[in-house]
């Protein structure tokens, strides 16, 4: 992939606060036209990365590239094509939603007043157009932040926890807003979030980091697909013990067994579910149901973050490790 195909490219980004390493030669890239999730536990370095990308923290030379613009030199050119919300958006309390967008928007390019109304409408704040920002609820503030970031029709949207402080209905609406923007305005989106189910529903690409290092990145479908399949096997209560013994004996296809309320949850080798069923039926066990379970991002995330920052799971990770070592050595 050439550099122009990336919306974001971060190379060996390093940051320390005092003695504490926050970003440890972080590398990742996000392709254009993706809705990418930026995941990591608290203190992983997500917000610091976003702040450095947007120039709120001093940016080292040539470590970050946004839409082909190298930072910090091309920061203003990059920001003209980017919309961003970092943490809780803050606007002038004594100005209305409309006035805030008008004034802050004038710093991008001459304000198109119909566009202000359009974005206010888009985020569902039409009734609060003339309401002072100081009287807004947390959810409304988040929406106005998103409206502000959309004002100049950006090619890339960078959002830090866009649904934080929102109720479930607000989250669903925000997801719809972002999907709508992605479809209608062809905007690439890069968002950090703790809400893994939200990310799984919204994003097609993810970057997972921990302790300032990348654990994995790639398209969600690729990350979730693995050599294993997960199934729930339901059997009657009196066959539980026998079923367990049979499954344990089939070590070559059953990788793990966990007791579930009405049977077991098992990890199987790919395309072996019919064999498990056959074994159990032949042994005279009445299999009530064999239910395939979809692997969730949450499981992957938990596995990765629990293993620690030195664990790399996907094939791309081997390359990542080598690259990081190289860049670290280069830095030194």
């Amino acid at each position: 992939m050439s550099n122009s195909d990336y919306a974001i490219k971060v190379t060996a980004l390093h940051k320390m606060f005092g003695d504490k390493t926050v970003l440890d030669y972080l590398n990742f890239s996000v392709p254009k036209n993706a809705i990418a999730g930026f995941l990591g536990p608290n203190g992983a370095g997500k917000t610091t990365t976003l702040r450095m990308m947007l120039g709120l923290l001093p940016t080292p030379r040539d470590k970050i590239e946004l839409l082909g613009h190298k930072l910090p030199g091309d920061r203003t050119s990059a920001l003209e094509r980017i919309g961003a919300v970092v943490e809780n958006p803050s606007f002038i309390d004594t100005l209305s939603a409309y006035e805030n967008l008008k004034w802050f928007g004038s710093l991008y390019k001459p304000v198109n007043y119909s566009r202000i109304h359009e974005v206010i409408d888009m985020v569902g704040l039409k009734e609060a157009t003339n309401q002072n920002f100081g009287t807004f609820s947390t959810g409304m503030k988040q929406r106005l932040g998103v409206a502000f970031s959309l004002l100049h029709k950006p090619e890339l949207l960078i959002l830090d926890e866009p649904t934080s402080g929102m109720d479930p209905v607000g989250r669903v609406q925000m997801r719809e807003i972002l999907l709508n923007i992605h479809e209608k305005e062809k905007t690439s989106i890069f968002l950090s979030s703790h809400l893994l189910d939200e990310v799984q529903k919204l994003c097609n690409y993810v970057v997972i980091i921990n302790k300032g290092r990348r654990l994995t990145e790639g398209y969600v479908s690729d990350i979730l697909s693995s050599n294993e399949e997960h199934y729930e096997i339901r059997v009657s209560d009196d066959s539980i013990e026998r079923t367990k013994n049979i499954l344990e004996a089939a070590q070559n296809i059953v990788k793990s067994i966990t007791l579930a309320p009405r049977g077991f949850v098992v990890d199987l080798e790919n395309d072996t579910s019919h064999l498990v069923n056959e074994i159990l039926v032949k042994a005279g066990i009445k299999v009530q149901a064999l239910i395939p379970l979809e692997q969730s991002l949450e499981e992957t995330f938990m596995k990765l973050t629990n293993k620690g920052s030195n664990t790399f799971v996907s094939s791309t990770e081997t390359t990542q490790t080598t690259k990081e070592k190289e860049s670290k050595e280069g830095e030194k």
Partner: protein
Amino acid sequence: MLRLWNLILFELRKILNNKKAFLFLIVLNITPIIASLALLIAYISCKSLGLGDFQFLAMKRIIQAMFTSHFTIFGYTAPFFLALIVGDSFSTEFGRGYMKTLLLTPVRRWQVIVAKTSSIIIFLLIAVLLGGFILQADLFIARAITQPSGVLPNPLQEKLMDTSISMVSVSSAFQLLVITFVANLMMIGFFIVFSMFFESAILMTFCSIGSVMAIHVFYLSAFMLKELVKWFGPLEKLCFTRHFTDLFSLNIIQNVLDGSVTILSEKVLEPMGFSLLWAVIFYVLAVIIFSRKQVLH
């Protein structure tokens, strides 16, 4: 350029949208407001004289004296208000997160400093001009309510008394504005450097004003102390506050008003030159600090 202009307008809008700004305009123009009352008292007291020319002359003297004192008092009190406004423009914005939103737009950090300074200077000049206009309006009113007596023939009357209804000449007014601009530019630069380290306007104001007072007290005592300790001499030269007090001294303002001194005279040019030099130093420092500042809120 258009972006910078929009930023200046936005900053001015923010200042004028703040209730404190109106309070500052009233407080900074307390002398002209009192002058209006004094004018009324003078009119009533001089009414028994029955001579409009004398009444007008008395009133004009009062107003002119008020203008000189207004300008001097303004010069000494403006830094306190400036510190608060600069604190609001920088420290408060860091604390409340406005600065973060501003820096997410494609503006450069030096542009933020230039825009905020310009808007504060414009506000300050509005305050000075407002005082001047109030006093000039007082003078018009005084002329309107005191009719020429007709006792003295007109040519003689003009020779004996200053019947002009202009409080100051255009040239003097312009020079006073230049002095105000340069002196306050230096102070604003100093306060901006300070505001980079605080997220509360009040805290920043106390600390910066405290520092200004400490520097000036040192300067006032240095003329004796430098005889005892040699390094007090060079340090005294670094006390930038002396240029500010020099520019706003009663003596200089009176001389500029009566035309005996201009801003090109050595007496004014020297403190103005040093003030400009300090302003450049403070602004360069402010830009360097701001460009490295981590905006965390």
